[in-house]
C-alpha cells in the first residue's frame, strides 16, 4: 500500500523551512481534524496550527464564492429546456468517454455567452427601445448605436444623445440578433422574456419574429431607413414594461445599483426622476407579470455590483453584423 503514495521527487518543492516532525496522530484525532471537529485548543501537540488552518479552509462561504449563482441558474434552466443538452450521449461520469477539458470549457463559455447576450439585451436593448417614447436616450457612440450595436456598447458609452428612433432600431436589431443566434440552441425558447415579448410585439406575433428579423436585419444597416415596420408603440410599451420589470426584479438583488446604467437613466427620464421609477413602473407596466412587481420602495443599495456575464456576441447571422459585436455582459458596474 505504500507504493501508491510514492510521489515523484520533483512534485514536491521544499519552499520553506519545515518545522519539527510532529508526533504521529492517532486515527481518531486525524479523523476529527479532517472533519473539522477538533478544536485547536484540544489538538495534539504540534497540531494546533493545523487545526486552525483546516478551520480556515472550511470557513463559511464568502460572497465572491457565490457570485456566479445567477449565471449558474440561468445555465441550468437553459440546459433543462434543451433536450439536446439533457440527453447528450456523453454520460458525464462514464470512465469510457474520453473527456477533453478544453472542449467542454469552450462549449460552456459559448452557452454562457448566449445567455449573457440575451441578459444584456433584455436590459439594455429594451432600454434602447425606450428611445421611441421620446426619451432622450443616453447611449454610446451614435454611429455604433445606429448600426444596431449590442446594448453593451451603449451601457459603457459616454453621454451622447442619440436619435431616439435609430436607438430603438438598434435595440430591435440587437434583439433580432440575439433571437436568431439563439434559435438553434436553448435560447430559442426565451420568448417568455421581456425582451422577446417586445420583439414579438414589434413583429406582430411570436411566430413572425424570424421573418421580421430577417427583413429588419437587411434594412437596419441603412441607418434610419426604417420606421414603417410597425415597430413603434407596441414595442415601446413592451420595452418599457420589460425595463420596469427588470428594474423591479433587480431591486432586491445585485442589480440594485443599476440606476447608473443608461437603461435606467432612460427609465428615470421617462418616469420623471430616479425616485419616481418605482411608482411609474407600477402604473405603467403593461400587463406585466404580477410575480415581478413585488419589490417596491427605494432601490436597494445592497447589491454587490458583481456581474458575472462576460458575453461575446456571437452567432450573429452574417448579413446583420458588419463586425462581431463584443458585448460585455457584466452590466452593473459600468462606469463611463
Amino acid at each position, binding site marked *: 500500500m505504500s507504493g501508491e503514495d510514492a510521489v515523484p521527487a520533483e512534485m514536491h518543492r521544499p519552499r520553506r523551512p519545515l518545522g519539527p516532525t510532529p508526533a504521529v496522530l492517532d486515527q481518531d484525532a486525524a479523523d476529527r481534524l479532517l472533519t473539522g471537529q477538533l478544536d485547536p485548543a484540544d489538538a495534539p501537540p504540534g497540531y494546533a496550527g493545523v487545526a486552525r488552518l483546516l478551520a*480556515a479552509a472550511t470557513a463559511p462561504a464568502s460572497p465572491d464564492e457565490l457570485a456566479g449563482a445567477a449565471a449558474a441558474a440561468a445555465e441550468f434552466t437553459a440546459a433543462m429546456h434543451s433536450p439536446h443538452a439533457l440527453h447528450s450521449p456523453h*454520460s*458525464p461520469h462514464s470512465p469510457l468517454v474520453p473527456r477533453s477539458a478544453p472542449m467542454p470549457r469552450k462549449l460552456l463559455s459559448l452557452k454562457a455567452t448566449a445567455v449573457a447576450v440575451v441578459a444584456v439585451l433584455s436590459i439594455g436593448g429594451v432600454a434602447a427601445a425606450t428611445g421611441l417614447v421620446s426619451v432622450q436616450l443616453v447611449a454610446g457612440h451614435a454611429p455604433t448605436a445606429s448600426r444596431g450595436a449590442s446594448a453593451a456598447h451603449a451601457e459603457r458609452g459616454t453621454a451622447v444623445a442619440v436619435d431616439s428612433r435609430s436607438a430603438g432600431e438598434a435595440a430591435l436589431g440587437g434583439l433580432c440578433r440575439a433571437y436568431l443566434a439563439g434559435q438553434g440552441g436553448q435560447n430559442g425558447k426565451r420568448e417568455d422574456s421581456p425582451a422577446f415579448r417586445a420583439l414579438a410585439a414589434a413583429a406582430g406575433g411570436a411566430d413572425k419574429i424570424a421573418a421580421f428579423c430577417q427583413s429588419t436585419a437587411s434594412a437596419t444597416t441603412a441607418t434610419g431607413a426604417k420606421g414603417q415596420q410597425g415597430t413603434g408603440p407596441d414595442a415601446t410599451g413592451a420595452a418599457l414594461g420589460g425595463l420596469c420589470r427588470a428594474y423591479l426584479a433587480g431591486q432586491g438583488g445585485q442589480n440594485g445599483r443599476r440606476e447608473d446604467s443608461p437603461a435606467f437613466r432612460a427609465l428615470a427620464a421617462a418616469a420623471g426622476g430616479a425616485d419616481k421609477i418605482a411608482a411609474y413602473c407600477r402604473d405603467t407596466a403593461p400587463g406585466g407579470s404580477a410575480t415581478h412587481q413585488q419589490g417596491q420602495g427605494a432601490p436597494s443599495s445592497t447589491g454587490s455590483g458583481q456581474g458575472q456575464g462576460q458575453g461575446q456576441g456571437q452567432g450573429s447571422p452574417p448579413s446583420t453584423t458588419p463586425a462581431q459585436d463584443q458585448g460585455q455582459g457584466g452590466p452593473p458596474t459600468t462606469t463611463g
Partner: protein
Amino acid sequence: MIGASFPSVLAHAQRGDEQAFAILWRDLQPALLRYFRVATPAVTEDLAAETWLGVIQGLERFKGDERGFRSWVFTLARHRAVDWQRWKARRPAMLVPVELLDDQAAPDDPAAAALEALSTRAALTLIAELPHDQAEVVALRLIAGLDVAQVARIVGKRPGTVRVIAHRGLRRLAQLAGPVVLAHGSVTR
C-alpha cells in the same frame, strides 16, 4: 449540507426547478471552488463551471441521498481536475512556471497569512503545497466532507491507503505550519 430537505430539493431540481438547483449550487459551489483551488490552482472557476455542466447533464438520472450526491459531484469534479492535469501535461510549453502561479495566487507567506488572518484562500494555498495525492485526499475529506470510503472510490485507492495519505498530509501540514506557529507564539484565539 442541505439536510432534511435534500430529497425534496433534489426532486425539484430534477424536474427543472431553477430555485431548487440554486440551493444545490449554493451548497456545493464554495466547496468545489476550494477543491479546485487545491487540486488545480490556476483554473478553479472554469473547472467548477464544467463540473456543474456535468451535474446538470446527469441530474435527471441521479439517485441517492445527500452524501451520495456530494460524492457524485466530487467524482465529476475530480474527472475535470484529472483532465485538466493531463491537458496541462501535454502543453508544458504554454505553462507559466508553477512557482510563479503560486506566488501570484498567494500572499508572501501562505503559512503566516493563514495562521494570522485565518484566510481561507491562504489556507487552501498552503494545503495545495502538499504533494498532490495528499492535497487531494485532504481536500476531499475536509472540504468536500466525504468519508474515507467515498474518497477511496473517487481517487481509486483502497481505504487504508487513503487513511495513510491523509495522515501524511496532516503531518506535513503540521510541519509547514510549525515554524509559523513558533515564530508567532501562541496560536490560541
